[in-house]
């Protein structure tokens, strides 16, 4: 049993480490293997060190953390809503975050304030959806899903309005934020620590999540306290998404496709899927971001484009092969 869990995770971890090393080795500036080795040993010229340690490393770690957070949040949402189409953004979170970020940009605020405003927007949207779905009467996954989708549509309208009213010179920055872009990421530590903490906290919950995935009645019959577990998942997934969106804007697709891909390959055991999502989501985004910043360098592409271009064919292939 333990072997069965650790083998795929070990393999995914190896691939993740390889992806990060790859992203440290390539960039628009050509560094030779000798230079890279010198940097690894803590030597090398100052320029190469700056490139690898101060530009590539934080960006690769941010990409890994954001990809992992989005994939885990997606997996949790799919368990919670028991709907294969659920993804971290479906409940209006990215809409709320985008609204917060764009409002900060419109108000002429910079850097940290944009991140803070995006985070507040995401939390506000979370509580809004939660409060409305809770409302009077029961709290069902379909009601939560519908509330979230409608709130998301509302945010979409607000965002379009803001874009239409914003001064022309601010538009590019806003559009790039909406497309998702890791060049805006600052320190990688908050999302990375959150990802690690989440994975550790979810380990003891794996069994309950497995039961919940089969339906709340079965879960209740098997002695799982369904309501607090569902609330916990919702709040956790929201927090993870908010942290990811705040770091790198709204990057679509990772949260939807990575969990499904892994389920097709590994089966639907949450004890395995959740940490696997963290590793595979992170790896996908690290690779996508590396391509985004090198493909047509010095021009930079939005990473969301690459995640979709890489992920869509892979996912369709897996889906076609299964059954």
């Amino acid at each position, binding site marked *: 049993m333990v072997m069965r869990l650790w083998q795929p995770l070990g393999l995914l971890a190896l691939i993740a480490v390889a992806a990060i090393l790859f992203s440290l080795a390539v960039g628009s500036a050509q560094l030779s293997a000798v230079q890279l080795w010198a940097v690894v040993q803590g030597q090398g010229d100052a320029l190469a060190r700056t490139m690898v340690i101060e530009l590539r490393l934080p960006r690769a770690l941010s990409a890994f953390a954001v990809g992992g957070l989005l994939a885990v949040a997606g997996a949790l949402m799919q368990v919670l809503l028991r709907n294969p189409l659920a993804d971290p953004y479906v409940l209006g979170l990215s809409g709320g975050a985008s609204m917060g970020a764009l409002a900060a940009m419109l108000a002429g605020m*910079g850097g940290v304030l*944009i991140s803070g405003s995006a985070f507040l*927007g995401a*939390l506000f949207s979370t509580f809004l959806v939660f409060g409305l779905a809770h409302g009077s009467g029961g709290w069902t996954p379909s009601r939560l899903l519908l509330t979230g989708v409608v709130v998301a549509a509302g945010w979409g309208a607000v965002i379009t309005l803001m874009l239409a009213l914003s001064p022309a010179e601010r538009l590019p*920055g806003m559009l790039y934020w909406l497309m998702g872009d890791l*060049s805006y990421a600052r320190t990688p530590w908050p999302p990375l620590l959150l990802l690690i903490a989440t994975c550790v906290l979810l380990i003891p919950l794996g069994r309950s999540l497995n039961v919940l995935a089969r339906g709340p009645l079965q879960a209740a019959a098997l002695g799982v306290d369904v309501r607090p577990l569902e609330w916990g998942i919702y709040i956790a997934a929201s927090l993870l998404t908010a942290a990811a969106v705040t770091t790198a804007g709204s990057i679509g697709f990772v949260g939807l496709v990575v969990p499904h891909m892994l389920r097709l390959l590994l089966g639907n055991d949450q004890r395995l899927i959740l940490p696997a999502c963290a590793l595979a989501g992170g790896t996908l985004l690290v690779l996508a971001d590396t391509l985004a910043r090198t493909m047509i360098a010095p021009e930079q592409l939005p990473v969301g484009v690459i995640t979709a271009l890489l992920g869509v064919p892979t996912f369709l292939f897996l889906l076609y092969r299964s059954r």
Partner: protein
Amino acid sequence: MFTLANKCMQFGGALGAALLWLGSGIATPLHADNPSRCAVDDLGREVCLHASANRIATLSPGATELTYAAGAGDQVVAVVSYSDYPPEAKDVASVGSHTRIDLEALVGLAPDLVIGWVTGNPAEQMDTLEALGMPVFYIEPRSVEAVADTIERLARLAGTEPVGKQAANEFREGMAALTARYSERDPVATFYQVWDEPLMSVNDDHLIGQVVQLCGGENVFGDQHRLVPRLDDEAVLAANPDAIIAGGMGEENRDWLTHWEQYPNLAAVDADNLYFVPPSLIQRPTPRLLEGAQILCEKLEHTRQKRRGS
């Protein structure tokens, strides 16, 4: 909306800590111990260099043009896309676009001075540059005098004061001569078209709006609240300008003007006062603005002559 945001803030004190954490360093001005060259940038920060800048990176097409005008063209080692003037600038290494800079390529060129664009460059990337210890000088000239003044400040940092001073003064004098000649003449109701879809103009605070005024034009959308208001045909028909001046896609394209010919009742169409001014001469805050202003003033003068003739 921000009240709601504030309410959310009360949901946990931990959030405050999280927000603090999310931020990295806050930009601080560079203060050298024994500075030899200092200038105040358009963020109001004093930027000082130990010696004149030898390797300059310009992060907007306008900054490139101004730096060349300041006589520091030979010191420019990095530009961004669309830096197409002067032609020599096309041969300089590009480090991406002004909205998304390839930081690696930029750092690899080891500039000793980066000329940033206040509202055009992404703040996050500029913060990273400053955290790496690169002196950044932000510019954004919004008036005729600011263009001249920016050239002088760039020349001070680059150690090319004589050339910069001369270029700045030529620009100042040229614009002053245009002002003296045209600004008091009969006002011409003018519509300046920046873009066609969506239809956009400028207000009086915009540099182009200022040029229209100094040519004795009266910008029909001058009192709009936004710097670059978005409009529809109806607004232009209601304003009924005597002259329509448009840029266009590319330097020769008059297509935007033919659009207006479907409204023969417009005063500007009736008197055939539809004029093209090459956008690169008037839409960038650089010394070439003098040439653009010259053309624009002549077009408005042409309009006045037709009016007198009829």
